C-alpha cells in the first residue's frame, strides 16, 4: 500500500455552546493515500466541514492525532505551523464570500506568494500568470474584482490561491455545491486535471453523492460527527453495508428513468449533536436498532479497506 499523505486517528473536535458540548467530530479515523482523493459525505451538520478544517489546523482538535506524511502534526505551533499550512490548503464552498471583495484576482492569488517571502517582485507577477493559466482564468480578468466574476470563475480564483504554494494536500469544502451543473462540471474537471498535474491529495467534502463518486477514490460516510462507513468508492456504491449508507444511497435521485426505484424509508430527522448519548448516533432513526447500538461502536473491516461502524453489520449483510 502506498504511503498515506494524511492519517487521522480518533480525531475529536468539540465546540462549547450555550447548552453544553457540541460534538462536531467524534472519534474519526482514516487514511488518505498520496495523490488520491478521499470523499467525505454526510448531511448538513454531520461535521464534515469541521473535520476538514481541523485537519488543516484551522480548528484546534479536542483530541486524537493528525499525521502528515507520517509525521505527527497534531500539536505544531508557530514556525512549524506556518510551514505546515503551506502544505495544506482549502477551497471553500461559497465563491461569493471566500474572496475579499476589495482584492483583484491578481491580488488574491499574489497574497500567499507574497507571504511566503520566496519570490522577488518580478517573479511574483510571473507566478500569478502561471497560476491563472493553470486554473483556466483569462489574462484579461487579472485586474477584475470578485463581483465582476461569475461563480465558476470565482471558484477558479479560490483554487489558484489554494494552489499557489504547491500544497500536497487540499481540503475541498463543497467546492461545487453553489454552482450550476454545467459550471460544476467544468470545475470538477479542473480539479481532477490539477490533481494529476500537481500530484495533489484531496479531501473532498460534499453532500452530493454523485459528485463524490465521480471524483473520489475512497469515501467516508459521516453521521453526526461519527464515521459510519469508509471504503473504496466503487465498493461503497456497489456494496454499502451500514444502514445509514444504504438509506443515503437509496435517497439519491438518479437520472436513469428506467432504473427500478426502491427507497429505504428513514424516519425523523437528524438529532442534536449537543451532548449526545454514547453509542451509534444513527440508532434513533435506524430501522434495525437494538440495545447493543447504544454502546460505542467499533469499525469492522468487512473487506480490504472497507470499514463499517455497526455492531449488526455481519447479520444484516
Amino acid at each position, binding site marked *: 500500500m502506498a504511503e498515506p499523505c494524511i492519517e487521522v486517528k480518533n480525531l475529536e473536535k468539540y465546540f462549547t455552546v450555550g447548552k453544553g458540548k457540541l460534538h462536531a467530530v467524534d472519534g474519526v479515523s482514516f487514511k488518505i493515500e498520496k495523490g488520491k482523493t478521499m470523499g467525505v459525505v454526510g448531511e448538513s451538520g454531520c461535521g464534515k466541514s469541521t473535520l476538514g478544517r481541523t485537519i488543516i489546523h484551522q480548528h484546534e482538535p479536542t483530541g486524537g492525532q493528525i499525521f502528515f506524511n507520517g509525521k505527527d502534526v497534531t500539536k505544531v505551533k508557530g514556525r512549524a505551523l506556518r510551514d505546515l499550512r503551506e502544505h495544506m490548503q482549502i477551497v*471553500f464552498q461559497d465563491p461569493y464570500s471566500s474572496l475579499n471583495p476589495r482584492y483583484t484576482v491578481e491580488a488574491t492569488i499574489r497574497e500567499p506568494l507574497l*507571504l511566503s517571502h520566496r519570490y522577488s517582485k518580478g517573479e511574483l507577477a510571473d507566478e500569478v500568470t502561471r497560476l491563472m493559466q493553470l486554473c483556466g482564468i483569462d489574462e484579461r480578468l487579472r485586474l477584475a474584482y470578485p463581483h465582476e466574476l*461569475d461563480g465558476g470563475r470565482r471558484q477558479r480564483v479560490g483554487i489558484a490561491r489554494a494552489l499557489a504554494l504547491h500544497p500536497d494536500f487540499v481540503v475541498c469544502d463543497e467546492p461545487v455545491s453553489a454552482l450550476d451543473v454545467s459550471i460544476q462540471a467544468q470545475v470538477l474537471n479542473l480539479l481532477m486535471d490539477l490533481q494529476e498535474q500537481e500530484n495533489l491529495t484531496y479531501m473532498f467534502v460534499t453532500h452530493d453523492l454523485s459528485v463524490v463518486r465521480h471524483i473520489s477514490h475512497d469515501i467516508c460516510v459521516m453521521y453526526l460527527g461519527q464515521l459510519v462507513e469508509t471504503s473504496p468508492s466503487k465498493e461503497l456504491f456497489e456494496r454499502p453495508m451500514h444502514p445509514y449508507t444504504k438509506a443515503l444511497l437509496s435517497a439519491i435521485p438518479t437520472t436513469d428513468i428506467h432504473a427500478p426505484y426502491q427507497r429505504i424509508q428513514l424516519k425523523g430527522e437528524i438529532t442534536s449533536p449537543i451532548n449526545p448519548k454514547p453509542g451509534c448516533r444513527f440508532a434513533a432513526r435506524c430501522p434495525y436498532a437494538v440495545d447493543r447500538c447504544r454502546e460505542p461502536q467499533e469499525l469492522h473491516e468487512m473487506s480490504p479497506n472497507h470499514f463499517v461502524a455497526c455492531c449488526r453489520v455481519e447479520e444484516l449483510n
Partner: protein
Amino acid sequence: MAEKKKAPATAKKKNQTLEIIKRLARNKVAMAAGIVFVLLFVMAIFAPLLEPYDYTLMNGKLAFAKPSLEHPFGCDRLGRDLMSRIIRGSRFSLGMGLLGVLCSLAAASVLGSVAGFFGQVADNIVMRLLDVIQAIPGILLTMTISTVLGRGFFNTVLALSIGGIPGNTRMLRAMILAIRNSEYVEAASSINCSKARIIAKHILPNAFAPVLVGAAMGIGGTIGQASMLSFVGLGIQPPDPEWGALISDGRNYIATYPHLIVFPGLMIGIVSLCACLLADGLRDATDPKLKK
C-alpha cells in the same frame, strides 16, 4: 435573481474607490449635494478672502440693518455684516463637524477593533463601558463633557467626538464581527496571513464603507450639536461667529429682527441636508447588493 456577468474587455487598472465615485456621479442629487458640500468647505478655507467686510467691524449706524444689496444678510446688533460673520463662522462650524466626526471615528476604530478581535475579556470591558456611556442620552453626554472641558474650539471638538464614540464603536464592532467570520478571512489565515495583516488588509477596508456613510451623515448632526452647545452657553461663544453662537446672539431679537436667526439656521440646515444626501448617495454607491 438574474445574475449579471460583467467581464472587463481589457485588463485596465480599475480602482474600487474610483468605481464608487463613478456610481455616485450617476446619482445627480447626491452629486449636487456633494458639490455644495465641497464648495462650503472651500468657503471655510478661503473665508478671509471671501468676506465682503471685516467680520469684526462694528458700525453703530448699521445696527440691526435688514438685508440689503450692500449687506445681503443684514447686520447684527453691533452693526457687523452678518454675511461676513457667517462666512467666517463656517470655519468653526464645519471645522468642528469634520474634526468631531474624524476624532470620534478614529477612537471608535480602535475600540471597535479591540472589542471585535481580542477575545471575550476586552470585548466585555469595552461593551460594558459603552453601556454605561450610552445610558446617558446623547446630547446630555455631550453637554456634560463640554461642561467639564470648558468652552473653546478644541474642547468642544473633543466633547462632540466623545459623544459620537459609542454609536460608531458599536457599528464598527458589529461589522468587524460579521467580516471576521467570513470565508475570505479564514482563507487569509490559511495562507499564513498574520493577525495584524488580516485586520489591516482584509477586515477594516471592508468594514469602512458603512462607516464612511455614517461619517457623512454624522457631520450634519455634529454641526447641529455644536450649534446647540453654543446656544445653551457651552461650545463656542460670541463674539466668535460660530453659527449656533450667532443664533444664540440673536435670539432675544427674534420678534423684531428675525434675519439674525434665519440665515445662520439656514446655513446649518443646508450643510446637514447636503451631508444627509451625500451619505444616502454614498450608501447606495457602496452597497454590494446593488453592485452585484
